[in-house]
C-alpha cells in the first residue's frame, strides 16, 4: 500500500513538474510506457490470486487512471502555455498601410452618373432611352425640325460641318439631341415616351461653352399629351433629380423652331455662399427649354398633327450636373484632370436607383 501511495505521489509530482511536452512524455513513458512503473504493476495482476487481484486490482488501475488524467490535464495546460507564448511572439504592426483598394481609387465621371440618375427617374415614369449618331444629316438636324433655310444655326460659326460628299451635301455634328426625336418618330408608332441623352456639338468655345457638351432630350407623343402633362413631368423630374420635396418652376413663353407653343423653364433657388439650394429662395435659374412638338415636325415624321400631339424638352446634362453637384466651371469636365475627377467623380458602386436613392 505504502509503495503504491508513494509511487502515486512521485508520479503526480513528476507530472506537475514537467516543463514542456517532452518532459511530460518522458514521465508518461516512465509510468505508462511498456516498461513503465505503473505498467509493470499492471503486469503483476495476472500472477495474483483472485483475492489479491480483487484487492490490488482497483488500486493499481486507480493509480493508472489518476496518472493518465493528470498527464492529460498537464498536456492541455502546457499546450495552452505554448500557444500563449507563440501568440505573444507573433505580432504584426497593424498600422502599416495596405495598398489602397481599387474600389477606392476608381471613379465614375459626373456625366455618366447624371445620365444614370436621369434614366432611373424617367424609367420610373415609363420612358425608355433612345440614341442616335453624333454625325447627322442636315435634314435630320435642321430641316425636319423646322429650322428654316438660312437660320443662323445652319452657319459655320455655330455648327460643325463635315466635308461635303459627291452630291455636295455636308453632314453635321448634331447641334442638339433633337434629331433623335425625328429618328424615333419615324421608326416607332406612338405612343412614344423616350429620353435621349447624348453628346452634342456647337462651334463655340469660351469660359462657359465647350465645343462638345451633353444634352438630354425628352419626347412624349400620343393623342392627348399636353402642356399640363409636360409641367407635371418636368416638376416631378426636378424634385426627384435635385432630391428635394418641393420645387417652384416658372414657365416663360419662348421660341424654338421645333416646338409651338414653346417655353423656357426657370427653377427657383437660393444662393448662399456659393451653394445653390432648390425649393427655396428668390433667384431664378434657367434649366431647360420645352414645348409642344411643332405641327411641321409631326408632319415631317409622317404624323398628322390633328391626330397626334405631344411635347419635348431638352436640357444640358453638364449644366444640371453643375447645378446639383456644384462644379463651378464646364471646361474641366473634358480635361481629364485626375484631381478634378477624384473630387467630383463618383465611387464605382454608387449606383443611382430610386430604390436606394440617387445619391449615397
Amino acid at each position, binding site marked *: 500500500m505504502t509503495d503504491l501511495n508513494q509511487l502515486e505521489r512521485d508520479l503526480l509530482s513528476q507530472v506537475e513538474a514537467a516543463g514542456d511536452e517532452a518532459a511530460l512524455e518522458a514521465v508518461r513513458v516512465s509510468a505508462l510506457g511498456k516498461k513503465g512503473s505503473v505498467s509493470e504493476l499492471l503486469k503483476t495482476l495476472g500472477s495474483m490470486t483472485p483475492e489479491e487481484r480483487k484487492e490490488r486490482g482497483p488500486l493499481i488501475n486507480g493509480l493508472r487512471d489518476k496518472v493518465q488524467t493528470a498527464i492529460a490535464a498537464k498536456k492541455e495546460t502546457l499546450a495552452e502555455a505554448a500557444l500563449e507564448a507563440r501568440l505573444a511572439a507573433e505580432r504584426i504592426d497593424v498600422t502599416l498601410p495596405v495598398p489602397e483598394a481599387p474600389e477606392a481609387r476608381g471613379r465614375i465621371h459626373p456625366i455618366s452618373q447624371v445620365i444614370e440618375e436621369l434614366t432611373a427617374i424617367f424609367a420610373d415614369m415609363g420612358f425608355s432611352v433612345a440614341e442616335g449618331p453624333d454625325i447627322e444629316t442636315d435634314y435630320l438636324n435642321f430641316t425636319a425640325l423646322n429650322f428654316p433655310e438660312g437660320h443662323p444655326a445652319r452657319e459655320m460659326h455655330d455648327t460643325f460641318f463635315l466635308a461635303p460628299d459627291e452630291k455636295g451635301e455636308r453632314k453635321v455634328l448634331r447641334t442638339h439631341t433633337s434629331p433623335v426625336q425625328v429618328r424615333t418618330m419615324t421608326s416607332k408608332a406612338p405612343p412614344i415616351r423616350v429620353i435621349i441623352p447624348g453628346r452634342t456639338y456647337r462651334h463655340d468655345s469660351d469660359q462657359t461653352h465647350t465645343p462638345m457638351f451633353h444634352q438630354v432630350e425628352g419626347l412624349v407623343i400620343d393623342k392627348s399629351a399636353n402642356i399640363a402633362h409636360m409641367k407635371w413631368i418636368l416638376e416631378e423630374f426636378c424634385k426627384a433629380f435635385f432630391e428635394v420635396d418641393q420645387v417652384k418652376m416658372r414657365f*416663360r413663353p419662348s421660341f424654338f423652331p421645333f416646338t409651338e407653343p414653346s417655353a423656357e423653364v426657370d427653377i427657383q433657388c437660393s444662393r448662399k455662399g456659393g451653394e445653390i439650394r432648390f425649393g427655396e429662395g428668390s433667384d431664378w435659374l434657367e434649366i431647360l427649354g420645352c414645348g409642344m412638338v411643332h405641327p411641321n415636325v409631326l408632319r415631317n415624321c409622317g404624323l398628322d398633327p390633328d391626330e397626334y400631339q405631344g411635347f419635348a424638352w431638352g436640357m444640358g446634362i453638364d449644366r444640371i450636373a453643375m447645378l446639383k453637384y456644384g462644379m463651378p466651371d464646364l471646361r474641366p469636365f473634358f480635361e481629364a*484632370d485626375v484631381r478634378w475627377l477624384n473630387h467630383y467623380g463618383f465611387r464605382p458602386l454608387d449606383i443611382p436607383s430610386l430604390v436606394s436613392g440617387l445619391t449615397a
Partner: protein
Amino acid sequence: MKFTLSWLKDHLDTTASLDEIVETLTRIGLEVEGVEDKAKTLAPYTIAYVIAAEQHPNADRLRVCMVDTGAGKPIQVVCGAPNARTGMKSVFAPPGTYIPGKNITLGIGTIRGVESAGMLCSGSELEISDDHDGIIELPEDAPVGKAYAAYAGLDDPVIEINLTPNRPDCTSIHGIARDLAAAGLGTLKADAVPAVQGRGACPVSVTLDFVPGDEKLCPVFALRLVRGVKNGPSPEWMQRRLLSIGLRPINALVDITNYVTFDRGRPLHVFDLKKVKGNLTVRRAKAGEEVLALDGRTYALDSGTVVIADESGVESIAGIMGGEHSGSDEGTTDVLIESALWDPLNIAQTGRKHGIITDARYRFERGIDPAFTLPGLDLATQMVIDLCGGEPSEAVVAGQVPDTSRVIAFPWSEVPRLSGLDVRPAESEEILRKLGFKVEGSGERVNVTPPSWRPDIEGKADLVEEVIRIAGVDRIEPQPLARLEAAVAKPILTLIQKRTRLARRALAVRGLVEAVTWSFISKGEAELFGGGDPRLSLANPIAAELSDMRPSLLPGLLKAAQRNADRGFGDVALFEVGQTFASDEPEGQSIKAAAVRRGTARAEGVGRHWDGGAESVDAFDAKADVLALLAALGIPAGGLQIVSGGPAWFHPGRSGTLQFGPRNVVGAFGEVHPKILKALDLKGPLVAFELDLNALVPPKAKPTKMRPRLGLPDFQPLTRDFAFVVGRDVAAGDIVKAAQGAERQLIVGVDVFDVYEGTGIDPDKKSVAIAVTLQPTEKTLTDVEIEAVSSKIVAEVAKKTGAVLRS
C-alpha cells in the same frame, strides 16, 4: 432690345408699376434681361455748390472744398479733380454711397491729413459717361440739394428684353406696349399715322433693278424729299431717350430715323439730296464694287449684297448700313427719306458676311411689318417737318407692299387640346383681338387673320401659344401623365446601353478613373490610330488639334494621362467608354471601352509600398483589365482567342489581339508603341486596351432563366504538375490548349504556374510549368490510369509544341 419706361408710356396708358411691368414682360415671353433704374442707383447723389475750393496743405494735386449740399452745414470734401473750383456746381455723394464706376462704398476718410466727408463725382464714377477728367459741372441754376438723377433726366428706368427671333413686332416699343396691353397692363394708345400731304413729285426716281425671281430682295421702296430743312442737334428729350438706350445722338435727321427704328420697329435711311447724283437704283452689287459705310469702314461687295446706288455708284448697303458719302450732316438742307422692305434671309446673310451688326439689320432680318412701310415714311416725314422744318414732296414708291394676309381656321378647342388649360373662347378671342388678330365667325371654329406685323404666325399651334402666353402659362395646373400600362415597369435598356453602363462600373472597380475626352482629335492622331478618313474631317474645326472624328479612344486618353503626369501625377489609370467613328454613317459609330495605365498605376496598388511594389505597369495589367471587363459583361471566355501582336499603335512584341475567330476581332491590349510615345510626346511606361462593345456578340436568347443542372462529381479532383522545355517562341497558350485537348473528359483545368529562362536551360528555350487538374466522374483513378493520362498530356504537348518534359 432696350427701351425706357417713359418711352413705353408714350404707347401704353397704364398705372402699372415698373415691377409689375417687368414681371409681366417676362411672363408673356418678353424676358427681361435687366432693368437699369438710375433713380434708384443714383438716389444718394445730389446737386451741390462748392462754396470754396482751396489748395490742400499737404498735396499739390488735391483741393479742400467746402460744399453746400443743401442739407445744413457745409461739408468738407477733399477733391483731386483739376476742375474743382470755388463757385461751381457739381454732384455730391455722402459717405455710405456706393460708387458704381469705382466699385467702392464711400466712407469718411482722411486724405493726407485732411478729413473728407463725401465726394464730388465725375461722369465715369457714376457710370453715366466716359468722362473721368474732372467732376461733373452743372449750370449755375442747378437746384442745390435736389436729386441729380431726376435733374439730369436720368430717372427714366431702362428695360432690356431678350427678344426671341420670332418676334420682330417687339423690336418696336409700340409692339411691346401692345403685348402688355393684351396682358391687361393698360391700354394701347392710338397708333394711326396721319398721311403726309406732299407737294410736287419727288425729284429723284427709284428703279428696282432685279432679274425675275429676285424681286423678293426688295418688294417695295418708298422715297420722299423734304426740302429746306434745318438740320442740327435733335431736341434734348429725343437725345436723352436715345442716350438711355445706348445710342449716340448725331443730328436731328439721323436721330429721327433711329428714333422711329425703336419707336415703331421701322428702320429708315436719309440721304442728303445734294450728295446724290441722279436717280437711285436698287440692285445686287457688282463684283469689285465697294462702299465706305457710316461706320468708317470700307466694304468690298459682291452680288450677294443688295445696294442702293446712284449714278456715281453704291450709296448704301440695303437694310443694313448707309454710306458715308451721301449721309446727312449739319449742312443738309434737302433730305431724301427712304422706307423700304428687304428680304430677311438676304439681310441676315449679308450682315453676317460683312460682320455688320446694326439696329436696321436686327429688324429687317427678323421681318418687319410690310404694311408700315408707307406710314413709317409719313411718320418720319412729319417728325422732320416738326423738328427741322421743310417742305415735303410726294412719295415715290417703287414696287408694292406685299400682301401677307392669310386666314387660319381655328377651333377654340385647340387651346385646351394642346395646353391642358380650358380658356373660354371669349377670353381667347379677346386676347387675339388685343394682339391685333382679326377674328371672324362665331361658334366652335373661327377664322383668324394674323396682323401684318406677325410673320411668325403660321397655324393653329401659334395661335394657341398667343392665347396661353397672354392668359398665363402659370394658370396651367400640372396633370399627371398616366402610365401607358397599369403594370410593373418593363426593363428599358438596350443591350449596348446595359453594356456601356456595366463597362463603366467594371472598370472603375479596377481603380480606373473615368474621363470624358473630346470626340474630335487632330488629323495626325487620327491617322496614327487607324483613322484619317477625309469624310470624318471637320470642315470648320474649332482648333487644328480638334479636327477629325476619333477612330479610337486611346489618343485622347494617352494625352490626358500625359497631361496629368506633367502636373505631377504620373501614376494615372484612366478609362473612357464612348463613341468612336469609322465612317460618317450611323453604322460607323460604335461604343468602345478603353483604358490606359501609366507609371505604377496597377490595379493591385499604386506607387511604392513597404511590402514591395512600385512595379511599373506592363501589358499584363492591360490584359487583366480587358479580361475583367469581358467577365463583367458576361461574355463567355470559351471562344475568346488571344493572338500575339496588335494594331500598329501597340508594341508588336508586347501586345495581343482579342478575337472570337479571325473575322471577329473585338479589341487589343498591350504596351503603347515607342513610335506613338514619340509622336504624341508621351513618356511611358504606358499600357492600354481598347474593346469594341458593339462587336461583342449578344447573348443567346433562352426560353427560361433556368441554370443548367449542377452535376457535382462524387470524387475528388487531383492535380499533376508538368515542367516542359520548349522553344522561346512557343506560346504558353498553345501548351495549355494542347494539354487541355489531351483528355477532354478528365481535364478540367490547366494553369501555368512557372515560366523560366536562364541558367540550366538552353538560351533559345524556356521552361513552362503547368498544373493540370483532373476530375474523375465515374470512379477514383488508379495510379496506372493517372500515369496513362499524364503520358497522353506529355505526348500531346510535345506533338503540338515540340516540348520535352524537363528532366
